[in-house]
């Protein structure tokens, strides 16, 4: 039975009460989805990835329109809400926006933070102008998301508004076995400022496909801090794609974290479209068991006088695998670019594996572009030193792994998030 077809796209669009233009765009994406083959190891960007066990053709879970009170939220979320930096948040359980809490004073200043479906009704022009600009039909999974997404978040920050505390989305999956596809659309007008954290949570589940996409539109002078935190339980196959469009003097501080799931892939792109734009891109991953994490990054310098600075650090143990493939691409005329890219890996077991491909494509000459990649075990000298101070070897090793990952953590000014990630890493180190 073919489940990923036109009937289902129409059913989703109808259930969400969407305007005609959106159904049309969904159907176009469906066409691309139907035409594109599933990637395999012969595709350059999938050469290290084995999708043979991935639940690719699962039916998409339909929205049920469920809502919950704050007290009735899943335990997973409640525990996170006790220690979080966010002041306003949306909670999705599967495809349903079950709970929302957005400070009234922000709404009064023109900020919009709600589900995509709701925003389509209240602010249709704002959504139509921005949706699918960053992620549409770039590959099989992007097209699948664009055609079949059942839910999403929409954040709109009006010109000049500076939101001090972060806003966030908690996406929880409680039942496995069905595909879940959602997106985030973030629009920051001129000189607006905000922070946005998306967290993905679930208990251990049977094999489940999860698709997410984040589109970020940063108008001149806008500043966004964005964090994508994936701590799913076992069984999840997570395909994430994000793209930020940065206009003149816009700034992005981005963080992508993969700690959970069976397989997680993050395709992270920053498009520096105006002079003065800058993008900081941080990544953190730690794989155990048979986890496989793919990170594909793009620092695309289209205009002159732009800056990007990327640091992806990770560790793998047991039979885990990590792939980093990053590209700094400078268009002709992207003079005075300053671009940096670094990937640092720790291999902690003889059966773990790392592949790293830091790439440059440079089309302008008056630039500073450097990159580096290192992969190594925990440093013997450092271990020896700590042992000489009385630490048992295993403890010394745990300490050094945490120190390796801490380089990224210390660059995140969100205290509660940092503490949360430290706790998850602590747990994984001891597994």
């Amino acid at each position, binding site marked *: 039975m073919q489940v990923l077809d036109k009937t289902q796209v129409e059913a989703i669009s109808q259930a969400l009460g969407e305007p005609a233009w959106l159904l049309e765009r969904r159907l176009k994406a469906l066409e691309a989805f139907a035409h594109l083959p599933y990637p395999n190891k012969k595709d350059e960007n999938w050469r290290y990835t084995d999708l043979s066990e991935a639940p690719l053709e699962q039916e998409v879970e339909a929205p049920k329109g469920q809502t919950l009170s704050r007290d009735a939220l899943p335990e997973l979320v409640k525990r996170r809400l006790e220690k979080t930096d966010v002041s306003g948040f949306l909670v999705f359980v599967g495809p349903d926006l079950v709970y929302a809490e957005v400070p009234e004073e922000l709404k009064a200043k023109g900020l919009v933070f709600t589900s995509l479906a709701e925003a389509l009704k209240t602010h249709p022009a704002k959504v139509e102008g921005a949706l699918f600009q960053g992620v549409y039909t770039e590959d099989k999974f992007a097209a699948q998301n664009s055609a079949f997404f059942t839910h999403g978040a929409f954040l709109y920050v009006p010109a000049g508004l500076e939101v001090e505390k972060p806003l966030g989305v908690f996406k929880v999956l409680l039942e496995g076995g069905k595909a879940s596809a959602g997106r985030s659309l973030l629009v920051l007008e001129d000189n607006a400022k905000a922070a946005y954290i998306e967290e993905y949570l679930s208990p251990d589940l049977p094999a489940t496909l999860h698709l997410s996409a984040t589109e970020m539109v940063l108008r001149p002078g806008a500043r966004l801090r964005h964090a994508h935190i994936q701590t799913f339980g076992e069984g999840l196959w997570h395909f994430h794609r994000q793209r930020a469009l940065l206009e003149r003097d816009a700034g992005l501080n981005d963080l992508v974290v993969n700690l959970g799931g069976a397989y997680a892939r993050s395709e992270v792109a920053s498009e520096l479209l105006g002079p003065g734009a800058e993008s900081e891109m941080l990544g953190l991953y730690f794989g155990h068991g048979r986890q496989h994490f793919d990170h594909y990054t793009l620092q695309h310098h289209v205009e002159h006088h732009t800056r990007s600075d990327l640091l992806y650090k990770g560790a793998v143990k047991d039979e885990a695998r990590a792939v980093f493939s990053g590209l700094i691409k400078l268009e002709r005329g992207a003079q005075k670019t300053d671009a940096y890219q670094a990937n640092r890996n720790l*291999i902690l077991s003889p059966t773990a594996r790392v592949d790293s491909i830091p790439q440059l494509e440079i089309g302008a000459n008056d630039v500073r572009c450097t990159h*580096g990649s*290192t992969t190594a075990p925990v440093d013997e000298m450092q271990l020896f030193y700590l042992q000489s101070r009385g630490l048992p070897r295993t403890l010394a090793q745990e300490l050094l792994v945490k120190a390796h990952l801490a380089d990224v953590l210390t660059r995140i000014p969100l205290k509660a998030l940092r503490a949360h990630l430290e706790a998850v890493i602590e747990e994984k180190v001891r597994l």
Partner: protein
Amino acid sequence: MSEVDLKTLGEEYKYHFIDEVKPVYVAERGLSRRVIEAISYHKGEPEWMLKFRLRALEIFQKKPMPTWGPDLSGLDLDNLVYYVKPAEVRDAKSWEEIPEEIRRTYERLGIPEAERKVLAGVGAQYDSEMVYHRVREELERQGVIFVAIEEGMKKYEDLFKEYFAKVVPPEDNKFAALNSAAWSGGSFVYVPPGVKVELPLQAYFRVNTPEFGQFERTLIIVDEGAEVHYIEGCTAPMYSTESLHTGVIEIVVKRGARSRYTTIQNWSTNMYNLVTQRALVYGDAFHEWLDGNLGSKVTMKYPSSYLLEPGARTEILSIAFAKTGQHQDTGAKILLGAPHTSGTIVSKSISKGEGRASYRGLVKVLEGAKHAKANVECDALLIDPESRTDTYPYIEIEEDSAHVGHEATVSKINDEQIFYLQTRGLKEDEAAALIVRGFIEPIAKELPLEYAVELNRLIELEMEGSVG
């Protein structure tokens, strides 16, 4: 460097002279079973080699063109001449035996003079055939073999068969298959255990026929504890139509041996230069690739070292210069397949005008290669705003005790350095030329003094000749 000077840098190609040579046999255009059979017939080959060629032809026809890397659409494989026999004399032992017109070419290139002064042996290939091979007598007495590959196949058949196509089998890639089908010329080198060849052996490749494909094949065996340095140089006149050079170089470096293979490629800029070079390096042996790519329209060349036993080491030094109309897609590959193996790659490229230089490399550490170490360093210098450079380093690690690092930088000529040199009395363009020479110095200094003469002359032509 002043705008005007930089524009004319390296645009003069000194090896453009067409020789008045009438070949004795020219194969029909295109590659077919008939052409392969004709090549084999003209060489008087054993039956097994013809079979090998025909099998390779099938593989070549089955394999698709590479879907990555430079644009090869200008390469018309059906319109090339795959075999040109320049003269009846094959593999002469003295220059006098060679037809006058061909000899003049090598004299113009300065080969006989270099042979007298600084080389242990010389081989010269003209279009499809080796026309000259000679090695110093004392080496011959020690058992060193340095002959045309055809002679190696016939005279030393057992040794030849043991290694031929074992390092680079025809299945390796489409162009290795093409070479395996159409190969002609190249050297066969054997250095017996413990013998150290102090002066380099040199082979010189010249293409004269237009729309021609040269498919030299070289097999070098360095036996236990032996040492050798082999140098290859290439030139061709500039025609308006495209030619192809597809070599396969196979090297076996046995236990404790040392070898170095140096290529300074200065093909004319209508040449597609698609070469497969690989060395198998055994216990405690050391192999060095020194790869200079200055000429050709498109180069695809990634010298590789497979480190197969503990203690094997390799160093790959690569320099590329890309001018307008050139794409140098070069790099290196190291496979670390045993404990305590180590390798270094240093790549330097200069792009000028609309030239494009790409580094493409692979460092792979297999599971069990305990304490393997590899380091890659790529530096790119961009002269003009239109110049382009890429870095595509693949790093694959299956071993937890391995240390692998990669670093790359891209820059233009530093204004502050120019300014400093100017305050010391140098003109702006002199300062720029000095900085460029300094940039390639770490590799240039690795060349043996004798051969540095050749490289320096080429680099000066490219970089300095039109400056100041």
